[in-house]
């Protein structure tokens, strides 16, 4: 018995000991609930001790529990996709620990407002944007030209007689193009009377396109209507070679990727002779347009976040065309217009993060353009060069807000020669800007900025405030408004001739509502613009011109309703009048139509690897001036219609991806009239229309990758 009780005692003692030892070394349980900041529980969260494996996943009711052997001060981390991770320091003793977490949703495109007034953005990187870079290339009627595609967006005019963007009652001079922040002096091939020119730059060079139809950021200036901001590609992902064979020429490009750098080279040649031989042209070409360009790109990663980009493009082209001489009463009298052009554009930019806080962007560019013209018997020469530097420093403040400051300096030189008369024009231009994207809440933000500019040629300074406000009303919808002042130097011809000219100026007021999901977009925007100090040439050059523009732009895009189909519809209503150049009174200028509609349709046939698309553009007649009429600019052309179709088929040639592209511009062969031109005595008139009633294009693009596919 005694033995028995002794054994019992021992057992009890042992049990007691074991228990106390266990409690001394026991694992401690940590438990709690994970919810969002509104109190809704968050299942699936990962709760764990930093630096170890101990942890658990929150259950359907948001609760979690786990044990740990750790002792003393530890950090508990909670992470969940789409939410900001949270850390809490706790001291682990022997007691159970209860620890609740409230996680905040990460700022994303659904819960955070962004500036939208006046802007269209095409990007691959953002999840929800109105356009993708590929959309630009595949739009019928755009012929792979960035500007052609932008003309299917609301706010732009269908102006066929010349290149350029005519935005919301502004002329082409009021729209500027920027690549990686620097101004592009000659974004198009040199202007030829009545023949619109293409852009010099391929859409494939850019990863992002940001098109502003008004109210844009203080970072940009000298554009009273519109800024087109292009961001060049970063490092390529693979080494590739591209070959293009087109009905109008051909090209070859190669980009080689190294570990931290890449080098690319491109050569293109175009010649419209074979095409013109097959397809009758409305114009009498003497030398068919022909030319070529060569470019080199270089990318170098520097340290962890730095990226250096370098781009140089050199191009040459020539053409000559015979025009009817309207001033000569002799019928069939002609004069010849010949053009030889050389152009070089060089840009280098560097972007880096400094001290983990500041983003630094510096860019430097030099461009030179040389036009050698012969108009009838007059020998004309034009040289212009632009050298520029730019710096922007930005800093993120409290998660979302950003402060930016920067400045730019430009030096431009223009040398003109008309037969024996020479003119020289020099200007230095400097600007500084500061801007903040200030988030009051995630749903309400304001962008406020100011831009100060000084023009050496005008010997004048301006201060331009810009402010926008945006308020998110739902996951996909938001209101925004913008106000801004925009200045621009008058055309250099006038500055050269007349001293004391001032900056031309425009005020923008914009109200915007949009709802953008990844499948459907609806956007409506109303605007009012006031123009001041526009240049007048009568009775002598002065700054007394003025004007206004007001209108509504509507955009609807739908990728959801019809399978494999993407379509968009743009509508613009524009009411604008201005007194500028030689206008005797305030009238609607020739480049403004009251109503403009574009319908873009694209359909994919996945099995056949085929895409078909069309673009229909419509614009009501535009004003023109008939000097025989009593009132100025009182006549209107008939309305404009253009239906373009395109098709592309993906194939393999050998082991290489190949795209065959086919397009017809103005399929219906509508005889569009852009405007009428009158002789100065008003006795004779000319119709200005397209080069050809239809334009056919066929091209084969082969991409050779380093993929060793069998």
């Amino acid at each position, binding site marked *: 018995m005694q033995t028995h009780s002794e054994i019992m005692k021992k057992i009890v003692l042992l049990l007691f000991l074991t228990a106390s030892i266990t409690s001394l070394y026991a694992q401690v349980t940590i438990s709690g609930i994970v919810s969002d900041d509104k109190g809704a529980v968050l299942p699936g969260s990962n709760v764990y001790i*930093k630096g170890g494996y101990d942890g*658990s996943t929150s259950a359907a009711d948001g609760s979690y529990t786990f044990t740990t052997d750790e002792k003393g001060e530890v950090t508990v981390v909670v992470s969940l996709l789409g939410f900001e991770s949270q850390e809490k320091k706790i001291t682990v003793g022997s007691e159970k620990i209860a620890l609740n977490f409230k996680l905040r949703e990460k700022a994303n495109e659904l819960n955070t407002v962004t500036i939208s007034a006046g802007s269209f953005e095409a990007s691959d990187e953002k*999840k929800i944007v109105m356009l993708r870079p590929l959309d630009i290339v595949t739009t019928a009627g755009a012929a792979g030209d960035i500007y052609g595609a932008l003309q299917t967006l609301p706010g732009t005019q269908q102006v066929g007689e010349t290149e350029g963007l005519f935005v919301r009652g502004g002329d082409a001079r009021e729209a500027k193009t920027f690549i990686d922040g620097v101004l592009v002096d000659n974004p198009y091939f040199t202007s030829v009377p009545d023949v619109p020119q293409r852009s010099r730059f391929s859409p494939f060079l850019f990863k992002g396109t940001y098109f502003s139809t008004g109210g844009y950021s203080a970072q940009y200036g000298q554009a009273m209507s519109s800024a087109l901001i292009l961001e060049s590609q970063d490092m390529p992902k693979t080494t590739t070679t591209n070959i293009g064979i087109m009905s109008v020429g051909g090209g070859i490009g190669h980009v080689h990727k190294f570990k931290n750098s890449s080098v690319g080279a491109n050569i293109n040649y175009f010649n419209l002779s074979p095409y013109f031989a097959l397809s009758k042209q409305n114009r009498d070409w003497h030398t068919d347009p022909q030319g070529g360009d060569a470019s080199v790109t270089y990318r170098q990663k520097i340290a962890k976040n730095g990226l250096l980009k370098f781009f140089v493009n050199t191009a040459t082209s020539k053409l000559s065309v015979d025009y009817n001489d309207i001033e000569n009463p002799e019928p069939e009298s002609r004069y010849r217009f010949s053009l030889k052009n050389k152009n070089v554009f060089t840009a280098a930019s560097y972007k880096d993060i400094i001290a983990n806080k500041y983003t630094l962007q510096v860019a430097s560019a030099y461009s030179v353009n040389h036009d050698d013209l012969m108009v009838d018997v007059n020998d004309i020469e034009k040289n212009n060069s632009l050298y520029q530097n730019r710096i922007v420093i930005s800093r993120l403040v409290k998660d979302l807000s950003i402060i930016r400051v920067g400045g730019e300096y430009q030096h431009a030189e223009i040398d003109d020669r008309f037969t024996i008369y020479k003119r020289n024009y020099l200007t230095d231009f400097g600007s500084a800007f500061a801007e903040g994207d200030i988030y009051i809440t995630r749903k309400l933000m304001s962008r406020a900025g100011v831009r100060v500019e000084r023009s050496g040629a005008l010997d004048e300074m301006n201060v331009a405030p810009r402010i926008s406000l945006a308020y998110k009303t739902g996951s996909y919808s938001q209101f925004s408004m913008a106000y801004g002042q925009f200045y621009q130097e008058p055309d250099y011809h006038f500055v050269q001739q007349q001293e004391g000219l001032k900056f031309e100026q425009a005020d923008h007021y914009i109200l915007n509502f949009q709802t953008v999901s*990844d499948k459907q977009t609806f956007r409506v925007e109303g605007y009012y613009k006031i123009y001041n100090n526009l240049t007048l040439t009568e009775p002598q050059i002065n700054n007394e011109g003025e004007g206004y523009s007001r209108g509504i732009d509507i955009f609807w895009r739908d990728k959801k309703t019809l399978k494999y189909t993407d379509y968009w519809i743009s509508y613009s209503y524009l009411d604008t009048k201005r007194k500028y150049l030689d206008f005797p009174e305030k009238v609607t200028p020739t480049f403004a139509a009251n109503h403009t509609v574009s319908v873009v349709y694209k359909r994919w046939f996945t099995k056949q690897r085929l895409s078909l698309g069309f673009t229909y553009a419509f614009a009501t007649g535009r004003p023109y001036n008939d000097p025989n009429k009593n009132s100025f600019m009182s006549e209107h052309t008939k309305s404009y219609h253009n239906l373009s179709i395109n098709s592309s088929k993906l194939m393999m040639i050998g082991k290489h*991806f190949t795209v065959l592209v086919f397009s017809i511009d103005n399929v219906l062969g509508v005889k569009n009239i852009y405007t009428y031109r009158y002789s100065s005595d008003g006795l004779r008139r000319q119709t200005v229309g397209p080069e050809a009633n239809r334009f056919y294009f066929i091209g084969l693009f082969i991409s050779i*990758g380093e*993929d*060793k596919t*069998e």
Partner: protein
Amino acid sequence: MKIRFTLALMLLVTILKAQNPKLENALLKNLKLLKEAESTEQVQAATNGFERIAESEKGEWLAQYYAGYSNILIGMRQESNAKKDEFYDRALGYINKADELSAKNSEVYVLKSWVLGMKIGVDPVNRGQSLGPESGMLISKAVELNPENPRAYYMRGQSAMYTPEQFGGGKAVALKFLETAVEKYKTFKPSSPAMPDWGEKRAQEVLEQCKKM
């Protein structure tokens, strides 16, 4: 001589690293959880386990590898494209870390090619052209780097199944790779129990599917 010594040392280091028993046990425990997981919640729990290991073992490619692998699996179970994309991006983050830690690793290339393929599936029209060549290049390299890796053939075959004949895919090509994959799986032995060893059963299923095409 010197090179040989360095190589031997490197090999030794690799073996020692692989033999970190705490890591290996934790990975094995989680692999078991993942294997047994049926519901998305269970896959998420296993994924979280891998992420905990990956966060704690920032220098171990295998830990990053499995965090990437399990995030792909959970992404595939999502309904919405936006959610799929978030998980694939998270997976890609871990896979890139694995790639940094273990350069020219056939297994890592397989995973990266796969996740890029899944990302193309989210938005084929816009991503096909940019991500397609990269995904194709990676899977070719995966085969090149280790011709005995059955997963490289399996993924190669699976992607060929969804690629039309005129683009170097199609049934015949897919069959060839999938059959090779099944063959290689039979003899494949992971160098240690926690090393990648997935896909055999699924590769057979895909092969059967392909035969019926």
